């Protein structure tokens, strides 16, 4: 189910522990961008953003591709997905409900069988 190792998870957690990096992830969610584009709204230097980007890259959340003279950064949906506890919460939500549903329908089915047996 959850396909990341403990190491990867702690890398991801460490990566998003920083508010600037979380904001970078949110920026890239709107589409790929170069480091200078990403750096613009932040009160930190190009180099600082570049360092943040390396942390995100190591955690598998972001990838950089050379495009002409610039390097374009984009989110790695797979990385995001694999590290996404949020979706797993939904799976768990339905699994828990299905456990309860299973018990409920089993008792309902039994009621039906008993009723049928009586009427025969």
């Amino acid at each position, binding site marked *: 189910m959850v396909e990341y190792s403990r190491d990867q998870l702690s890398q991801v*957690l460490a990566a998003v522990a920083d508010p600037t990096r979380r904001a970078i992830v949110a920026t890239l*969610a709107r589409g790929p961008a170069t480091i200078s584009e990403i750096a613009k709204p932040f009160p930190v230097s190009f180099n600082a953003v570049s360092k943040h980007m390396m942390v995100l890259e190591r955690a598998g959340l972001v990838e950089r591709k050379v495009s002409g003279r610039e390097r374009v950064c984009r989110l790695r949906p797979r990385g995001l997905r694999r590290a996404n*506890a*949020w979706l797993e919460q939904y799976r768990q939500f339905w699994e828990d409900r299905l456990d309860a*549903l299973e018990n409920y*329908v089993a008792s309902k*089915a039994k009621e039906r069988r008993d009723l049928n047996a009586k009427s025969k």
Partner: protein
Amino acid sequence: MPNQSETVRIRRRMPAPREVVYEAWTTGEGLRYWMCPGDVISAEATLDVRGGGSFRIVMKTPTEEHVQTGIYEVVEPPAKLVFTWTGSNHPPTRVIVEFLDLGDESEIVITHEGFTIPDIAKRYESGWGAIADKFAAYLAQHHGQNQPRR
């Protein structure tokens, strides 16, 4: 960028004919019973099961109250239900429930779709932020033990 979205799919064999399982999904009595496992102490369900009809489920835990609402898009007794799923804490998604006939038993397939990457990323910013903050606090505490007190 193509419109990527994520899906959660779950299949489960049910020890009852599909009519019984379908009824458990489409009556207030059924929903109230099985929608509240775990720490949910009470659940209220109001539903109008027909195409375009809406539902509202209020789940209470000792500390929180979750409200789920949605609109039925497809109602095909006893085989299929499609409804939107909107919660107070997440963007609207869609749930498809298929009830497969296996005689005295049945199988249920839940497909919860429409988690878009930007939405996930947004959640990521807030939801993961909270987790990451806890993690950072944990790290600080544990590493802090080896450091001189200020």
